[in-house]
């Protein structure tokens, strides 16, 4: 069973996930000690072994996208809540610096008072009890942690570059009245990942998981249970299921056309022109040109089809195996195929 790992955002903790953890077993991540989004992602991958289903809220969503870039085969699914994939925007640094200074000068209560109201659903009066709980959560962090997390956000990677490579299950969820991470930012992600499902929660803003904990909790719990039921139960074993068959269709079709002498001749004569006949994504095209077998499989290629590339440009099947395993050929032969039991 994959582990559901809940990644909170800026100066947030398990409180934002209480609607989820009340319904389904999950682990809440700690992203309070790392100085960059990449370091947070690496840290979580190291600290939480095995297959993971990620749900990331706000900054946590950015950490989740970075984990998907670094180790897609570790992830069975990803939910991104109230987030975005764009890198730092013009003018963002100055606004963030104001908040950093405020927390250092006036403390976390003052920061909460300044920051939280704009995070709530626009046009609604915030629930005082919720505001008290959120303020208490903010106060469980220090101005130093707040600064470190904001600086990590300012240097965040452009996830638009990597998200087309994520072909696994993807749930996008945001509040209809989230003015900080509006619905459009989630539609932008969905445009890169056709398998994405978008849920817009009404009467919710940037803190949708606690503004509407029952509805968000139910969506995440149901989605996560579905993923867990369907997930590749066997690590590092990409079964050729609907998402992979969808993602890799053009890539496999390109390879299938190498079954004919005409296709092989066209590929050998002018690879670019041949590849242009098929609707490959830029990533798939680059993977084919680089003979990057790991990437081709990750992007939906199935060995039975893409192997035909090796009929034009000979590569031994064992070298293709070693490339996917991330090993030298010698290591691969010794550690995986060395158990020779003839006779």
């Amino acid at each position: 069973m994959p582990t559901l790992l809940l990644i909170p955002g800026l100066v947030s903790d398990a409180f934002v996930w209480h609607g989820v953890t009340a319904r389904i077993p999950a682990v809440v991540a700690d992203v309070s000690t790392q100085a960059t989004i990449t370091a947070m992602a690496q840290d979580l991958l190291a600290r939480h072994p095995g297959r993971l289903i990620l749900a990331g809220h706000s900054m946590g969503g950015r950490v989740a996208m970075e984990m998907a870039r670094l180790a897609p085969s570790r992830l069975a699914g990803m939910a991104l809540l109230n987030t975005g994939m764009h890198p730092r925007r013009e003018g963002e640094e100055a606004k963030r610096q104001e908040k950093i200074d405020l927390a250092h000068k006036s403390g976390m209560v003052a920061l909460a008072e300044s920051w939280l109201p704009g995070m709530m659903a626009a046009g609604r009066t915030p629930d005082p009890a919720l505001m008290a709980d959120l303020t208490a959560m903010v106060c469980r962090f220090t101005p130093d942690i707040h600064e470190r997390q904001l600086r990590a956000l300012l240097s965040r990677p452009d996830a638009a570059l990597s998200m087309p490579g994520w072909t696994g299950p993807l749930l996008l969820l945001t509040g209809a009245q989230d003015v900080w991470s509006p619905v459009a930012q989630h539609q932008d992600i969905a445009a890169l990942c056709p398998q994405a499902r978008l849920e817009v929660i009404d009467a919710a803003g940037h803190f949708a998981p606690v503004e509407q904990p029952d509805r968000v909790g139910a969506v995440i719990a149901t989605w996560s249970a579905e993923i867990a039921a369907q997930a590749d139960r066997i690590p590092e074993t990409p079964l050729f299921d609907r998402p992979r068959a969808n993602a890799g269709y053009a890539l496999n079709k390109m390879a299938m056309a190498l079954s004919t002498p005409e296709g092989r001749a066209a590929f050998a004569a002018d690879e670019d022109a041949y590849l242009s006949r098929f609707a490959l994504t830029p990533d798939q095209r680059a993977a084919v040109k680089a003979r990057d077998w790991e990437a081709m499989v990750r992007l939906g290629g199935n060995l039975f089809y893409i192997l035909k590339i090796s009929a034009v440009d000979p590569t031994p099947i064992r070298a293709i195996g070693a490339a996917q395993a991330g090993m030298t050929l010698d290591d691969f032969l010794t550690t995986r195929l060395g158990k020779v039991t003839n006779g």
Partner: protein
Amino acid sequence: MAELLAGLGTSHVPSIAAALDKGLRHTPEWAPFFDGYTPAQDWIAAKKPDIAVVIFNDHGNAFFLDRVPTLALGVAEEYHPIDEGWGPRPIPPFRGAADFAWHLADCMVEGHFDPLICRELDVDHGLQVPMELVFGRPAAWPVKVVPILINTIQYPVPTPQRMWELGKLLRKAIENWPTDEKIVVMGTGGLSHQLQGARAGFINPAADRAWIDEIGPAPDRWRDMALTDYVETFGSEGAELIMWLVMRGCMDARVKTLHSHYFAPASMTGAGMVLLENAVCSS
């Protein structure tokens, strides 16, 4: 009625064909593999079967992903070996047992197995290699073939239990076939291997040996196992071993294991064979 002569399970690794094409049959690397098939080859040659029913999966050669039959049945008079990308192979075409195949089509649909019925079909290494392993490289194949193709590549893939039931149906079709033809049923694929993902190169010789030892006398646990457990135990491509269950389901509950053989790795695959005969012969 026709006679079920034997059930044979065998690997269909394409490197086996490549080794034969390159004349490597007697090299130190390959001789131990091929030599292990000799007793079964001799036994089958002496029995002179008329028809080989070959259960295999196409590997993106006859069928692309635009249409994927979960179950397909060849009813052609002739099947040509397919060019898988490396050019045509020097083996003769296969004669089809069209009459029996149409009878089998009737039995399948009546028994609620609904195949894609293929009048023209080229066959890939999934059929070629088992035929070469059993009958060598004759100028013309000594038996007619009936190809049964199972989708084991694109999910959903049929369950192991369904394969067993298909075997039972095949048995009925053989027993209802009013000729004196002798039939050998060949379940192909496996053994353990994985071509895809970071777990590529996974083989499991211990499980392979257990499979070879038990598929005749004690097949129940393999029949009852979930497909995902096949993937875990035998690798993502090794799960095609479920096609042996068609052969085993076709046989009596009690069988004799006449010959068996195991060799690993052949290329990236645990490779091997069993030859089974019903414990109480009908002839």
